């Protein structure tokens, strides 16, 4: 029992796994390996409070080195694992040293999808603290901004750039915004919100390349040949799970490291959590969730499994996105719904849309209605029956439909 539990990746999932392993009672060493130079930090505020200037980099720190040391978690930053030797249960590093493990947790995250030509000066991805710091510097001097990708990251950035008075064009290949994550109704509401706030939306527009002058970007060429002038471009067209280490070691991967709902991979000594994973659900389908909740809950499930307990992650998925003064909170799913009803007022961006399939509530999206969202999480997790009429009726308190229970 002298070997450590080693976690590759010091983001939200990796940190949570390290702390959960301690909470579950592991007495041995815990080693947390990060390839970024920073202690674990909150990533969601990068495209929100950090880029808008409300928070400093230090304020994003989840746990400082001293806090980790007190929990006897050894953090090593700026380090990359080159290879996993599964037979020897040993990690090999690029500088030649190696580290044997008792159990290994992969929390390697995901990286941004790149476009050809994106190495021009003035073209940025937004994933890491260093990315956000570079964008923040460039943003001050920029005049016209193009955002490629109308997903959460792109739209949150667009909102910040508009608040700073910049001219902003959002280019999205699909015919609606955030198409992978929200219903067409929500997409439409957000198209109106961004248009009202002065963003120029180019939906259904592919990108064929960049225009440059002296190595710096000056515009984006769309697939119809038109050119959007821009001196700063942020590319937010999704992420690719970092599964290469696992894949090369023969751990089964598809669109992510395949795990069950308890965090097990195909190797009994290796577990995985967070953005690098894809979960095999009970019905055989694969689910990829890129979210804080997934990172936290999968990490806890991994730690429990390692310590011989079984605590699979099964809660309804939730996400949120802050754009301008509108907070979008989503729980469950809107995919394949056959009925939707609205509670509240769409015009003023204070509403929730409830989605039903076969008369059963499957999800809801809330705009500036956190109470609906929080009640919705419990309704879904506890499988409480809700009629569309109740959902639409502001007179029906959602929390009142929940079974009475002790609060702790």
């Amino acid at each position, binding site marked *: 029992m002298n070997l450590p539990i080693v976690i590759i990746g010091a983001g939200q999932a990796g940190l949570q796994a390290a702390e959960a392993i301690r909470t579950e009672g592991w007495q041995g060493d815990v080693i947390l390996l990060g390839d970024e130079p920073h202690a674990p930090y*909150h990533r*969601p505020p990068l495209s929100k409070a950090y880029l808008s200037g409300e928070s400093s980099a230090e*304020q994003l720190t989840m*746990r400082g080195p001293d806090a980790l040391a007190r*929990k006897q978690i050894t953090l090593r930053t700026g380090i990359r694992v080159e290879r996993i030797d599964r037979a020897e249960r040993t990690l090999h590093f690029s500088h030649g040293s190696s580290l044997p493990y008792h159990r290994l947790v992969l929390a390697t995250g995901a990286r941004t999808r790149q476009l050809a030509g994106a190495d021009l000066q003035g073209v940025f991805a937004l994933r890491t603290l260093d990315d956000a710091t570079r964008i923040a510097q460039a943003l001050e001097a920029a005049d016209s901004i193009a955002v490629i990708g109308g997903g959460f990251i792109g739209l949150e950035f667009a909102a910040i750039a508009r608040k700073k008075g910049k001219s902003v064009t959002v280019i999205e290949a699909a015919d609606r915004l955030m198409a992978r994550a929200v219903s067409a109704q929500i997409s439409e509401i957000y198209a109106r919100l961004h248009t009202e706030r002065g963003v120029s939306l180019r939906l259904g527009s592919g990108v064929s390349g960049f225009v440059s002058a002296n190595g710096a970007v000056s515009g984006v060429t769309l697939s119809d040949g038109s050119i959007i002038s821009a001196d700063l471009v942020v590319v937010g067209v999704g992420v690719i799970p970092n599964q290469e280490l696992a894949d090369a070691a023969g751990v089964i991967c598809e669109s992510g490291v395949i795990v069950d709902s308890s965090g097990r991979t195909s190797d009994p000594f290796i577990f995985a959590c967070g953005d690098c994973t894809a979960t095999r659900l009970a019905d055989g389908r694969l689910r990829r969730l890129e979210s804080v909740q997934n990172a936290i809950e999968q990490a806890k499930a991994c730690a429990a499994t390692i310590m011989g307990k079984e605590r699979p992650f099964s809660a309804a998925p939730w996400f949120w996105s802050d754009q301008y003064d509108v907070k979008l909170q989503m729980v469950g799913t809107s995919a394949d719904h056959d009925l939707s009803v609205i509670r509240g007022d769409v015009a003023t961006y204070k509403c929730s849309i409830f989605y039903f399939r076969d008369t059963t509530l499957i999800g809801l999206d809330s705009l500036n*209605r*956190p109470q609906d969202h*929080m009640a919705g999480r419990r309704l879904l997790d506890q499988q409480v029956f809700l009629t569309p009429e109740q959902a639409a009726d502001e007179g029906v308190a959602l929390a009142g439909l929940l079974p009475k229970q002790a*609060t*702790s």
Partner: protein
Amino acid sequence: MPKVTYIEPSGNQVTIDVPVGWSLMQAATSNGVEGIEAECGGSCACATCHCYIESHADQVPAAEQGERDMLQNAVAEIRANSRLSCQIKMSENLEGLVVRLPETQI
């Protein structure tokens, strides 16, 4: 730098220097104070940084509507002095603030 004392769920007291402008959550979590989850990182989107303000009641700025709505969904008992620690920014006049953390956040 003003000091804040956090009372962890175990009863253990931790006093730390909190830079002006930082939230009570940021200072607590980055220093490893026990009893705050802060899953959303301070976006007022999760209600897992619930705390009880035990002093300076008249000095702490009142909660905005979004915080009040989220707070009602905190898991532990909600009291008159309940707040979300991510929404309270440190200022000089909060020197010596005492913050109690609940038994559970999730």
